Protein backbone atom coordinates (compact mmCIF):
# COMPACT_ATOMS: atom_id res chain seq x y z
CA UNK A 1 0.00 0.00 0.00
CA UNK A 2 1.13 3.50 -0.65
CA UNK A 3 2.79 5.69 1.87
CA UNK A 4 0.06 8.12 2.69
CA UNK A 5 0.64 11.69 3.58
CA UNK A 6 -2.48 13.48 4.57
CA UNK A 7 -3.10 16.45 6.74
CA UNK A 8 -2.10 15.82 10.29
CA UNK A 9 -0.94 12.35 9.44
CA UNK A 10 2.09 10.33 10.21
CA UNK A 11 3.84 8.94 7.17
CA UNK A 12 3.49 5.30 7.84
CA UNK A 13 2.71 2.26 5.81
CA UNK A 14 -0.74 1.10 6.62
CA UNK A 15 -1.90 -2.45 6.54
CA UNK A 16 0.95 -4.11 4.78
CA UNK A 17 0.86 -7.86 4.70
CA UNK A 18 3.32 -8.89 7.33
CA UNK A 19 6.78 -7.51 7.91
CA UNK A 20 5.42 -4.44 9.63
CA UNK A 21 7.66 -2.07 11.47
CA UNK A 22 8.93 -2.73 14.92
CA UNK A 23 6.62 -1.62 17.64
CA UNK A 24 3.41 0.11 16.88
CA UNK A 25 2.49 1.23 13.44
CA UNK A 26 0.88 4.60 13.72
CA UNK A 27 -2.54 5.70 12.71
CA UNK A 28 -2.74 7.57 9.44
CA UNK A 29 -5.07 10.50 9.21
CA UNK A 30 -7.61 8.69 7.13
CA UNK A 31 -8.14 6.35 10.00
CA UNK A 32 -6.36 3.23 8.89
CA UNK A 33 -6.44 0.60 11.53
CA UNK A 34 -3.23 0.47 13.47
CA UNK A 35 -1.50 -2.85 13.63
CA UNK A 36 0.40 -3.63 16.72
CA UNK A 37 3.12 -5.99 15.80
CA UNK A 38 5.62 -7.07 18.34
CA UNK A 39 8.40 -7.77 15.93
CA UNK A 40 9.07 -8.20 12.28
CA UNK A 41 9.37 -11.92 12.51
CA UNK A 42 5.92 -12.58 13.98
CA UNK A 43 4.17 -13.03 10.63
CA UNK A 44 6.88 -15.44 9.53
CA UNK A 45 6.38 -17.41 12.69
CA UNK A 46 2.74 -17.90 11.80
CA UNK A 47 3.51 -18.78 8.20
CA UNK A 48 6.22 -21.30 8.85
CA UNK A 49 4.30 -22.63 11.79
CA UNK A 50 1.21 -23.34 9.79
CA UNK A 51 3.10 -25.01 6.97
CA UNK A 52 4.97 -27.10 9.49
CA UNK A 53 1.72 -28.00 11.19
CA UNK A 54 0.17 -29.15 7.95
CA UNK A 55 3.18 -31.30 7.10
CA UNK A 56 3.11 -32.71 10.59
CA UNK A 57 -0.56 -33.62 10.32
CA UNK A 58 0.10 -35.14 6.92
CA UNK A 59 2.88 -37.24 8.39
CA UNK A 60 1.00 -38.35 11.47
CA UNK A 61 -2.22 -39.08 9.67
CA UNK A 62 -0.32 -41.09 7.11
CA UNK A 63 1.44 -43.08 9.77
CA UNK A 64 -1.78 -43.66 11.64
CA UNK A 65 -3.18 -45.49 8.64
CA UNK A 66 -3.11 -49.22 8.83
CA UNK A 67 -1.89 -49.39 5.33
CA UNK A 68 -0.20 -47.01 2.97
CA UNK A 69 -2.50 -48.11 0.19
CA UNK A 70 -4.66 -45.05 0.28
CA UNK A 71 -2.74 -42.38 2.06
CA UNK A 72 0.98 -41.99 2.29
CA UNK A 73 2.77 -39.96 4.96
CA UNK A 74 4.83 -36.99 3.91
CA UNK A 75 8.20 -38.63 4.44
CA UNK A 76 7.03 -41.62 2.46
CA UNK A 77 6.21 -39.45 -0.51
CA UNK A 78 9.45 -37.56 -0.36
CA UNK A 79 11.56 -40.68 -0.18
CA UNK A 80 9.61 -42.27 -3.01
CA UNK A 81 10.23 -39.19 -5.10
CA UNK A 82 13.88 -39.29 -4.21
CA UNK A 83 14.09 -42.92 -5.28
CA UNK A 84 12.27 -42.27 -8.51
CA UNK A 85 14.49 -39.35 -9.34
CA UNK A 86 17.40 -41.77 -9.47
CA UNK A 87 15.80 -43.86 -12.20
CA UNK A 88 16.20 -43.15 -15.86
CA UNK A 89 12.64 -44.25 -16.46
CA UNK A 90 11.29 -41.39 -14.42
CA UNK A 91 13.18 -38.78 -16.36
CA UNK A 92 12.22 -40.43 -19.61
CA UNK A 93 8.61 -40.16 -18.66
CA UNK A 94 9.15 -36.55 -17.64
CA UNK A 95 10.68 -35.79 -20.99
CA UNK A 96 7.84 -37.45 -22.85
CA UNK A 97 5.40 -35.37 -20.91
CA UNK A 98 7.36 -32.19 -21.36
CA UNK A 99 7.75 -32.31 -25.13
CA UNK A 100 4.11 -31.78 -26.04
CA UNK A 101 3.89 -29.27 -23.21
CA UNK A 102 6.64 -27.06 -24.52
CA UNK A 103 5.35 -27.07 -28.07
CA UNK A 104 1.76 -26.50 -27.07
CA UNK A 105 2.75 -23.80 -24.65
CA UNK A 106 4.90 -21.91 -27.15
CA UNK A 107 2.16 -22.17 -29.73
CA UNK A 108 -0.35 -20.85 -27.21
CA UNK A 109 1.88 -17.88 -26.46
CA UNK A 110 2.53 -17.01 -30.09
CA UNK A 111 -1.02 -17.41 -31.29
CA UNK A 112 -2.51 -16.02 -28.10
CA UNK A 113 -0.46 -12.85 -28.14
CA UNK A 114 -1.02 -12.31 -31.84
CA UNK A 115 -4.77 -12.78 -31.50
CA UNK A 116 -4.84 -10.73 -28.33
CA UNK A 117 -3.10 -7.83 -30.00
CA UNK A 118 -5.56 -7.86 -32.84
CA UNK A 119 -8.56 -8.15 -30.59
CA UNK A 120 -7.34 -5.45 -28.27
CA UNK A 121 -6.45 -3.04 -31.00
CA UNK A 122 -9.34 -3.44 -33.41
CA UNK A 123 -12.87 -3.34 -32.12
CA UNK A 124 -14.08 -4.93 -35.31
CA UNK A 125 -11.89 -7.93 -34.80
CA UNK A 126 -13.01 -8.16 -31.23
CA UNK A 127 -16.64 -8.13 -32.26
CA UNK A 128 -16.18 -10.84 -34.84
CA UNK A 129 -14.29 -13.18 -32.57
CA UNK A 130 -16.37 -12.45 -29.51
CA UNK A 131 -18.79 -15.40 -29.71
CA UNK A 132 -15.94 -17.88 -30.09
CA UNK A 133 -13.79 -16.45 -27.36
CA UNK A 134 -16.67 -16.18 -24.94
CA UNK A 135 -17.77 -19.73 -25.58
CA UNK A 136 -14.30 -21.21 -25.35
CA UNK A 137 -13.70 -19.30 -22.16
CA UNK A 138 -16.80 -20.69 -20.53
CA UNK A 139 -16.28 -24.24 -21.77
CA UNK A 140 -14.28 -26.78 -19.76
CA UNK A 141 -11.49 -27.40 -22.24
CA UNK A 142 -11.12 -30.98 -21.09
CA UNK A 143 -14.29 -31.78 -23.03
CA UNK A 144 -12.40 -31.05 -26.21
CA UNK A 145 -9.84 -33.77 -25.54
CA UNK A 146 -11.81 -36.54 -27.27
CA UNK A 147 -12.23 -34.26 -30.28
CA UNK A 148 -8.50 -33.65 -30.38
CA UNK A 149 -7.94 -37.39 -30.30
CA UNK A 150 -10.39 -38.03 -33.09
CA UNK A 151 -8.76 -35.31 -35.10
CA UNK A 152 -5.11 -36.11 -34.55
CA UNK A 153 -4.85 -39.52 -32.96
CA UNK A 154 -3.15 -40.28 -29.67
CA UNK A 155 0.36 -39.18 -30.52
CA UNK A 156 2.13 -35.94 -29.78
CA UNK A 157 0.02 -33.93 -32.18
CA UNK A 158 -3.21 -34.21 -30.23
CA UNK A 159 -1.38 -33.61 -26.96
CA UNK A 160 0.17 -30.44 -28.30
CA UNK A 161 -3.25 -29.35 -29.46
CA UNK A 162 -4.75 -29.93 -26.02
CA UNK A 163 -2.03 -27.99 -24.23
CA UNK A 164 -2.44 -25.26 -26.82
CA UNK A 165 -6.19 -25.08 -26.32
CA UNK A 166 -5.80 -24.86 -22.57
CA UNK A 167 -3.34 -22.03 -22.74
CA UNK A 168 -4.39 -19.90 -25.67
CA UNK A 169 -7.63 -18.48 -24.27
CA UNK A 170 -6.15 -16.81 -21.21
CA UNK A 171 -3.18 -15.49 -23.14
CA UNK A 172 -5.52 -13.99 -25.70
CA UNK A 173 -7.92 -12.46 -23.20
CA UNK A 174 -5.25 -10.92 -21.04
CA UNK A 175 -3.25 -9.62 -23.97
CA UNK A 176 -6.39 -8.08 -25.43
CA UNK A 177 -7.21 -6.46 -22.11
CA UNK A 178 -3.67 -5.19 -21.78
CA UNK A 179 -3.88 -3.55 -25.16
CA UNK A 180 -7.41 -2.26 -24.81
CA UNK A 181 -6.87 -0.62 -21.47
CA UNK A 182 -3.78 1.30 -22.41
CA UNK A 183 -4.10 4.74 -20.95
CA UNK A 184 -6.06 6.89 -23.37
CA UNK A 185 -3.90 9.86 -22.53
CA UNK A 186 -0.79 8.10 -23.75
CA UNK A 187 -2.38 7.28 -27.06
CA UNK A 188 -3.64 10.81 -27.53
CA UNK A 189 -0.25 12.16 -26.69
CA UNK A 190 1.31 9.98 -29.35
CA UNK A 191 -1.29 11.05 -31.86
CA UNK A 192 -0.64 14.69 -31.04
CA UNK A 193 2.90 14.17 -32.26
CA UNK A 194 1.45 12.93 -35.53
CA UNK A 195 2.74 9.39 -35.16
CA UNK A 196 1.83 6.84 -37.79
CA UNK A 197 -0.47 4.02 -36.76
CA UNK A 198 2.32 1.50 -36.90
CA UNK A 199 4.76 3.65 -34.94
CA UNK A 200 2.09 4.45 -32.41
CA UNK A 201 1.50 0.79 -31.97
CA UNK A 202 5.13 -0.16 -31.65
CA UNK A 203 6.30 2.68 -29.45
CA UNK A 204 3.33 3.48 -27.28
CA UNK A 205 0.68 0.82 -27.27
CA UNK A 206 2.86 -2.23 -27.23
CA UNK A 207 5.14 -1.17 -24.40
CA UNK A 208 2.16 0.06 -22.41
CA UNK A 209 0.40 -3.27 -22.82
CA UNK A 210 3.35 -5.34 -21.72
CA UNK A 211 2.08 -5.79 -18.17
CA UNK A 212 -1.19 -7.15 -19.48
CA UNK A 213 0.58 -9.41 -21.93
CA UNK A 214 2.89 -10.73 -19.24
CA UNK A 215 -0.09 -11.40 -17.02
CA UNK A 216 -1.55 -13.36 -19.88
CA UNK A 217 1.68 -15.28 -20.26
CA UNK A 218 1.73 -16.12 -16.61
CA UNK A 219 -1.87 -17.25 -16.41
CA UNK A 220 -1.67 -18.98 -19.77
CA UNK A 221 1.40 -20.88 -18.65
CA UNK A 222 -0.49 -22.09 -15.62
CA UNK A 223 -3.34 -23.22 -17.84
CA UNK A 224 -0.94 -24.94 -20.22
CA UNK A 225 0.46 -26.91 -17.31
CA UNK A 226 -3.07 -27.93 -16.45
CA UNK A 227 -3.51 -29.02 -20.04
CA UNK A 228 -0.34 -31.05 -19.78
CA UNK A 229 -1.63 -32.86 -16.73
CA UNK A 230 -5.07 -33.38 -18.28
CA UNK A 231 -3.34 -35.01 -21.22
CA UNK A 232 -1.46 -37.26 -18.85
CA UNK A 233 -4.49 -38.45 -16.98
CA UNK A 234 -6.92 -38.72 -19.88
CA UNK A 235 -4.60 -39.91 -22.64
CA UNK A 236 -2.32 -42.27 -20.91
CA UNK A 237 -0.14 -44.02 -23.47
CA UNK A 238 3.13 -42.32 -22.57
CA UNK A 239 4.89 -40.19 -20.03
CA UNK A 240 3.90 -39.41 -16.48
CA UNK A 241 0.39 -40.56 -17.13
CA UNK A 242 1.63 -44.01 -17.84
CA UNK A 243 3.52 -44.02 -14.58
CA UNK A 244 0.43 -42.89 -12.73
CA UNK A 245 -1.61 -45.62 -14.28
CA UNK A 246 0.97 -48.24 -13.48
CA UNK A 247 1.37 -47.21 -9.87
CA UNK A 248 -2.34 -47.07 -9.43
CA UNK A 249 -2.74 -50.53 -10.89
CA UNK A 250 -0.03 -51.92 -8.66
CA UNK A 251 -1.17 -49.97 -5.62
CA UNK A 252 2.24 -48.37 -5.31
CA UNK A 253 0.67 -45.39 -3.68
CA UNK A 254 3.85 -43.76 -2.48
CA UNK A 255 5.16 -43.69 -6.02
CA UNK A 256 1.83 -42.39 -7.26
CA UNK A 257 1.92 -39.54 -4.76
CA UNK A 258 5.51 -38.90 -5.75
CA UNK A 259 4.70 -38.55 -9.44
CA UNK A 260 1.83 -36.22 -8.61
CA UNK A 261 4.13 -34.22 -6.39
CA UNK A 262 6.64 -33.96 -9.22
CA UNK A 263 3.95 -32.58 -11.50
CA UNK A 264 2.77 -30.17 -8.85
CA UNK A 265 6.27 -28.93 -8.17
CA UNK A 266 6.75 -28.40 -11.88
CA UNK A 267 3.59 -26.33 -12.02
CA UNK A 268 4.53 -24.28 -8.97
CA UNK A 269 8.05 -23.59 -10.18
CA UNK A 270 6.77 -22.40 -13.53
CA UNK A 271 4.24 -20.15 -11.82
CA UNK A 272 6.85 -18.63 -9.57
CA UNK A 273 9.21 -18.00 -12.46
CA UNK A 274 6.46 -16.53 -14.60
CA UNK A 275 5.39 -14.28 -11.75
CA UNK A 276 8.94 -13.06 -11.23
CA UNK A 277 9.33 -12.22 -14.87
CA UNK A 278 5.97 -10.52 -14.98
CA UNK A 279 6.82 -8.44 -11.98
CA UNK A 280 10.13 -7.42 -13.45
CA UNK A 281 8.61 -6.44 -16.77
CA UNK A 282 5.67 -4.64 -15.22
CA UNK A 283 7.63 -2.86 -12.55
CA UNK A 284 6.90 0.60 -13.86
CA UNK A 285 3.20 -0.06 -13.67
CA UNK A 286 3.32 -1.31 -10.11
CA UNK A 287 5.30 1.71 -9.05
CA UNK A 288 2.83 3.97 -10.76
CA UNK A 289 -0.12 2.31 -9.11
CA UNK A 290 1.55 2.39 -5.75
CA UNK A 291 2.09 6.10 -5.97
CA UNK A 292 -1.55 6.90 -6.59
Amino acid at each position, binding site marked *: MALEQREGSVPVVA*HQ*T*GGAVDGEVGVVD*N*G*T*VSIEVAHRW*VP*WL*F*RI*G*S*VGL*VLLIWELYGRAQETTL*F*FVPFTGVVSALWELAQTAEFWDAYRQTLIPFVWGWLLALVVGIALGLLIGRF*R*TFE*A*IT*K*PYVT*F*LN*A*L*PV*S*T*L*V*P*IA*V*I*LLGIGYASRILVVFLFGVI*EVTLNTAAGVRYVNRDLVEMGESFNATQWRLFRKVILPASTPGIM*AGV*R*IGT*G*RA*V*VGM*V*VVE*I*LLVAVGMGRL*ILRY*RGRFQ*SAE*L*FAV*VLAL*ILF*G*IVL*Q*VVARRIERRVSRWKYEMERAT
Partner: protein
Amino acid sequence: MRALKKQNKNRLLSLAGLLAGLVIWEIIGRLELSPAFPPVTAVLGAVFEVWSSPRFLDALKESLISIAIALPPSILFGVAFGLLIGRYKPVEWAFDPLVNTFLSLPLVALIPVLFLIFGLGRGSILATIIIYTFFIVVVNTAAGVRTTDHQIVEMATSFGASERQILSRVVLPSALPLMFAGIRISTGRAIRAVIIAEQVIGLIGLGGLVQRLGGAFAVEQLYAVILFVGLFGLLSMEAVSFVERRALPWILAQEETEPALQGA
Protein backbone atom coordinates in the same frame (compact mmCIF):
# COMPACT_ATOMS: atom_id res chain seq x y z
CA MET B 1 -27.05 7.75 -29.68
CA ARG B 2 -23.75 7.16 -31.37
CA ALA B 3 -22.71 4.76 -28.66
CA LEU B 4 -25.86 2.76 -29.18
CA LYS B 5 -25.28 2.55 -32.90
CA LYS B 6 -21.77 1.39 -32.31
CA GLN B 7 -22.99 -1.25 -29.92
CA ASN B 8 -25.48 -2.52 -32.45
CA LYS B 9 -22.87 -2.50 -35.15
CA ASN B 10 -20.61 -4.63 -32.97
CA ARG B 11 -23.43 -7.01 -32.19
CA LEU B 12 -24.07 -7.41 -35.88
CA LEU B 13 -20.42 -8.10 -36.47
CA SER B 14 -20.41 -10.75 -33.78
CA LEU B 15 -23.41 -12.38 -35.32
CA ALA B 16 -21.82 -12.20 -38.75
CA GLY B 17 -18.65 -13.74 -37.40
CA LEU B 18 -20.59 -16.53 -35.82
CA LEU B 19 -22.51 -17.27 -38.98
CA ALA B 20 -19.37 -17.12 -41.09
CA GLY B 21 -17.72 -19.63 -38.80
CA LEU B 22 -20.68 -21.93 -38.99
CA VAL B 23 -20.73 -21.74 -42.75
CA ILE B 24 -17.03 -22.57 -42.96
CA TRP B 25 -17.54 -25.46 -40.62
CA GLU B 26 -20.44 -26.68 -42.70
CA ILE B 27 -18.29 -26.65 -45.79
CA ILE B 28 -15.46 -28.48 -44.05
CA GLY B 29 -17.96 -30.99 -42.80
CA ARG B 30 -19.51 -31.57 -46.18
CA LEU B 31 -16.10 -32.04 -47.70
CA GLU B 32 -15.50 -34.70 -45.06
CA LEU B 33 -12.01 -33.48 -44.38
CA SER B 34 -11.88 -35.11 -41.00
CA PRO B 35 -14.12 -37.21 -38.85
CA ALA B 36 -13.60 -34.57 -36.18
CA PHE B 37 -15.58 -32.01 -38.12
CA PRO B 38 -19.01 -33.22 -39.12
CA PRO B 39 -21.26 -30.71 -40.88
CA VAL B 40 -22.89 -28.20 -38.59
CA THR B 41 -26.31 -29.29 -39.69
CA ALA B 42 -25.57 -32.81 -38.52
CA VAL B 43 -24.48 -31.48 -35.15
CA LEU B 44 -27.61 -29.37 -34.84
CA GLY B 45 -29.67 -32.37 -35.69
CA ALA B 46 -27.91 -34.35 -33.00
CA VAL B 47 -28.57 -31.56 -30.53
CA PHE B 48 -32.27 -32.13 -30.39
CA GLU B 49 -31.84 -35.85 -30.26
CA VAL B 50 -29.19 -35.82 -27.57
CA TRP B 51 -30.53 -33.10 -25.30
CA SER B 52 -33.78 -34.94 -24.94
CA SER B 53 -32.38 -38.43 -24.57
CA PRO B 54 -32.66 -40.13 -21.18
CA ARG B 55 -28.97 -41.03 -21.32
CA PHE B 56 -28.05 -37.39 -21.49
CA LEU B 57 -30.58 -36.26 -18.94
CA ASP B 58 -29.40 -38.87 -16.47
CA ALA B 59 -25.82 -37.79 -16.92
CA LEU B 60 -26.85 -34.16 -16.48
CA LYS B 61 -28.72 -35.01 -13.33
CA GLU B 62 -25.67 -36.78 -11.91
CA SER B 63 -23.40 -33.84 -12.58
CA LEU B 64 -25.87 -31.34 -11.20
CA ILE B 65 -26.32 -33.35 -8.04
CA SER B 66 -22.59 -33.36 -7.45
CA ILE B 67 -22.42 -29.61 -7.88
CA ALA B 68 -25.46 -29.04 -5.72
CA ILE B 69 -23.94 -31.04 -2.89
CA ALA B 70 -20.41 -29.67 -3.04
CA LEU B 71 -20.69 -26.06 -4.15
CA PRO B 72 -22.90 -24.43 -1.49
CA PRO B 73 -20.88 -25.64 1.52
CA SER B 74 -17.68 -24.77 -0.29
CA ILE B 75 -18.94 -21.23 -0.83
CA LEU B 76 -20.25 -20.87 2.69
CA PHE B 77 -17.05 -22.01 4.33
CA GLY B 78 -15.01 -20.12 1.81
CA VAL B 79 -16.78 -16.88 2.68
CA ALA B 80 -16.45 -17.46 6.40
CA PHE B 81 -12.79 -18.28 6.04
CA GLY B 82 -12.18 -15.37 3.73
CA LEU B 83 -13.78 -12.99 6.22
CA LEU B 84 -11.47 -14.20 8.96
CA ILE B 85 -8.40 -14.03 6.77
CA GLY B 86 -9.25 -10.58 5.50
CA ARG B 87 -10.06 -9.13 8.87
CA TYR B 88 -7.48 -10.62 11.22
CA LYS B 89 -3.84 -10.47 10.36
CA PRO B 90 -2.69 -13.50 12.36
CA VAL B 91 -5.21 -15.64 10.52
CA GLU B 92 -3.94 -14.29 7.24
CA TRP B 93 -0.36 -15.01 8.20
CA ALA B 94 -1.24 -18.53 9.20
CA PHE B 95 -3.22 -19.48 6.13
CA ASP B 96 -1.53 -17.42 3.45
CA PRO B 97 1.03 -20.05 2.46
CA LEU B 98 -1.61 -22.75 2.27
CA VAL B 99 -4.06 -20.77 0.22
CA ASN B 100 -1.41 -19.44 -2.13
CA THR B 101 0.04 -22.86 -2.68
CA PHE B 102 -3.32 -24.25 -3.65
CA LEU B 103 -3.87 -21.40 -6.04
CA SER B 104 -0.50 -21.83 -7.75
CA LEU B 105 -0.59 -25.51 -8.40
CA PRO B 106 -2.34 -27.35 -11.21
CA LEU B 107 -5.26 -28.73 -9.24
CA VAL B 108 -5.90 -31.39 -11.87
CA ALA B 109 -2.76 -33.11 -10.70
CA LEU B 110 -4.44 -33.81 -7.40
CA ILE B 111 -7.24 -35.75 -9.02
CA PRO B 112 -5.41 -39.11 -9.11
CA VAL B 113 -4.56 -38.62 -5.44
CA LEU B 114 -8.15 -37.80 -4.57
CA PHE B 115 -9.30 -40.88 -6.37
CA LEU B 116 -6.85 -42.94 -4.40
CA ILE B 117 -8.12 -41.56 -1.13
CA PHE B 118 -11.83 -41.34 -1.84
CA GLY B 119 -12.24 -44.11 -4.33
CA LEU B 120 -13.69 -44.04 -7.83
CA GLY B 121 -17.01 -42.57 -6.88
CA ARG B 122 -18.95 -39.46 -6.03
CA GLY B 123 -16.73 -38.74 -3.04
CA SER B 124 -13.78 -37.91 -5.26
CA ILE B 125 -15.93 -35.78 -7.51
CA LEU B 126 -17.16 -33.79 -4.55
CA ALA B 127 -13.63 -33.42 -3.26
CA THR B 128 -12.52 -32.15 -6.64
CA ILE B 129 -15.27 -29.57 -6.76
CA ILE B 130 -14.38 -28.42 -3.29
CA ILE B 131 -10.69 -27.90 -3.94
CA TYR B 132 -11.47 -26.12 -7.19
CA THR B 133 -13.87 -23.68 -5.59
CA PHE B 134 -13.07 -23.23 -1.93
CA PHE B 135 -9.79 -21.35 -2.28
CA ILE B 136 -11.10 -19.02 -4.94
CA VAL B 137 -13.97 -17.95 -2.73
CA VAL B 138 -11.58 -17.49 0.19
CA VAL B 139 -9.19 -15.32 -1.77
CA ASN B 140 -11.85 -13.14 -3.29
CA THR B 141 -13.72 -12.71 -0.04
CA ALA B 142 -10.50 -11.81 1.76
CA ALA B 143 -9.71 -9.29 -0.94
CA GLY B 144 -13.20 -7.90 -0.58
CA VAL B 145 -12.71 -7.50 3.14
CA ARG B 146 -9.50 -5.63 2.47
CA THR B 147 -11.33 -3.11 0.35
CA THR B 148 -13.20 -1.99 3.43
CA ASP B 149 -12.75 1.74 3.70
CA HIS B 150 -10.90 2.32 6.92
CA GLN B 151 -12.51 5.67 7.27
CA ILE B 152 -15.87 3.97 7.52
CA VAL B 153 -14.54 1.62 10.18
CA GLU B 154 -13.23 4.59 12.09
CA MET B 155 -16.51 6.41 11.72
CA ALA B 156 -18.41 3.40 13.04
CA THR B 157 -15.97 3.12 15.97
CA SER B 158 -16.55 6.77 16.74
CA PHE B 159 -20.23 5.99 17.09
CA GLY B 160 -19.46 3.21 19.52
CA ALA B 161 -19.70 0.19 17.24
CA SER B 162 -18.60 -3.16 18.66
CA GLU B 163 -16.38 -5.50 16.67
CA ARG B 164 -19.41 -7.58 15.81
CA GLN B 165 -21.27 -4.56 14.52
CA ILE B 166 -18.28 -3.49 12.50
CA LEU B 167 -18.06 -6.92 10.92
CA SER B 168 -21.71 -7.15 10.04
CA ARG B 169 -22.52 -3.56 9.17
CA VAL B 170 -19.30 -2.35 7.60
CA VAL B 171 -16.94 -5.14 6.63
CA LEU B 172 -19.46 -7.54 5.18
CA PRO B 173 -21.25 -5.04 2.91
CA SER B 174 -17.88 -3.72 1.73
CA ALA B 175 -16.74 -7.21 0.88
CA LEU B 176 -19.86 -8.14 -1.08
CA PRO B 177 -18.77 -7.09 -4.57
CA LEU B 178 -15.57 -9.13 -4.62
CA MET B 179 -17.26 -11.90 -2.70
CA PHE B 180 -19.85 -12.19 -5.43
CA ALA B 181 -17.12 -12.15 -8.03
CA GLY B 182 -15.54 -15.07 -6.24
CA ILE B 183 -18.84 -16.92 -6.15
CA ARG B 184 -19.40 -16.28 -9.82
CA ILE B 185 -15.94 -17.53 -10.77
CA SER B 186 -16.25 -20.57 -8.58
CA THR B 187 -19.54 -21.49 -10.21
CA GLY B 188 -17.71 -21.77 -13.52
CA ARG B 189 -14.93 -23.69 -11.89
CA ALA B 190 -17.33 -26.09 -10.24
CA ILE B 191 -18.60 -27.05 -13.66
CA ARG B 192 -15.06 -27.59 -14.90
CA ALA B 193 -14.22 -29.60 -11.83
CA VAL B 194 -17.18 -31.92 -12.09
CA ILE B 195 -16.57 -32.51 -15.78
CA ILE B 196 -12.90 -33.33 -15.52
CA ALA B 197 -13.39 -35.56 -12.52
CA GLU B 198 -16.15 -37.42 -14.30
CA GLN B 199 -14.00 -37.70 -17.38
CA VAL B 200 -11.26 -39.35 -15.37
CA ILE B 201 -13.71 -41.87 -13.93
CA GLY B 202 -15.25 -42.21 -17.36
CA LEU B 203 -18.56 -43.62 -16.31
CA ILE B 204 -20.93 -41.21 -14.70
CA GLY B 205 -22.19 -37.73 -15.33
CA LEU B 206 -21.65 -35.47 -18.30
CA GLY B 207 -17.91 -35.99 -18.15
CA GLY B 208 -18.34 -39.69 -18.37
CA LEU B 209 -20.73 -39.22 -21.27
CA VAL B 210 -18.14 -37.14 -23.09
CA GLN B 211 -15.55 -39.87 -22.71
CA ARG B 212 -17.88 -42.60 -23.88
CA LEU B 213 -19.11 -40.68 -26.88
CA GLY B 214 -15.52 -39.85 -27.74
CA GLY B 215 -14.52 -43.46 -27.45
CA ALA B 216 -17.38 -44.47 -29.71
CA PHE B 217 -16.45 -41.81 -32.29
CA ALA B 218 -19.99 -40.44 -31.98
CA VAL B 219 -18.79 -36.99 -32.93
CA GLU B 220 -22.09 -35.25 -33.62
CA GLN B 221 -23.45 -36.26 -30.27
CA LEU B 222 -20.19 -35.33 -28.62
CA TYR B 223 -20.46 -31.82 -30.01
CA ALA B 224 -24.02 -31.65 -28.85
CA VAL B 225 -22.93 -32.39 -25.30
CA ILE B 226 -20.01 -29.96 -25.55
CA LEU B 227 -22.34 -27.26 -26.79
CA PHE B 228 -24.62 -27.85 -23.86
CA VAL B 229 -21.83 -27.72 -21.32
CA GLY B 230 -20.46 -24.49 -22.75
CA LEU B 231 -23.85 -22.80 -22.85
CA PHE B 232 -24.66 -24.07 -19.39
CA GLY B 233 -21.46 -22.55 -18.09
CA LEU B 234 -22.27 -19.22 -19.72
CA LEU B 235 -25.81 -19.16 -18.41
CA SER B 236 -24.91 -20.01 -14.84
CA MET B 237 -22.32 -17.26 -14.70
CA GLU B 238 -24.88 -14.87 -16.15
CA ALA B 239 -27.36 -15.97 -13.52
CA VAL B 240 -24.93 -15.19 -10.74
CA SER B 241 -24.13 -11.84 -12.37
CA PHE B 242 -27.81 -11.09 -12.44
CA VAL B 243 -28.20 -11.78 -8.74
CA GLU B 244 -25.07 -9.76 -8.15
CA ARG B 245 -26.44 -6.72 -9.92
CA ARG B 246 -29.74 -6.88 -8.07
CA ALA B 247 -28.12 -7.25 -4.69
CA LEU B 248 -25.51 -4.57 -5.18
CA PRO B 249 -27.16 -1.64 -6.90
CA TRP B 250 -24.58 0.79 -5.69
CA ILE B 251 -21.63 -0.84 -7.33
CA LEU B 252 -20.89 -0.75 -11.03
CA ALA B 253 -18.28 -3.13 -12.37
CA GLN B 254 -15.64 -4.62 -10.17
CA GLU B 255 -12.74 -6.65 -11.26
CA GLU B 256 -12.13 -10.07 -9.94
CA THR B 257 -9.00 -10.79 -8.00
CA GLU B 258 -6.29 -12.03 -10.33
CA PRO B 259 -5.24 -15.21 -8.61
CA ALA B 260 -8.78 -16.31 -9.08
CA LEU B 261 -8.28 -16.47 -12.81
CA GLN B 262 -5.60 -19.08 -12.79
CA GLY B 263 -5.50 -22.74 -12.06
CA ALA B 264 -7.52 -25.55 -13.53
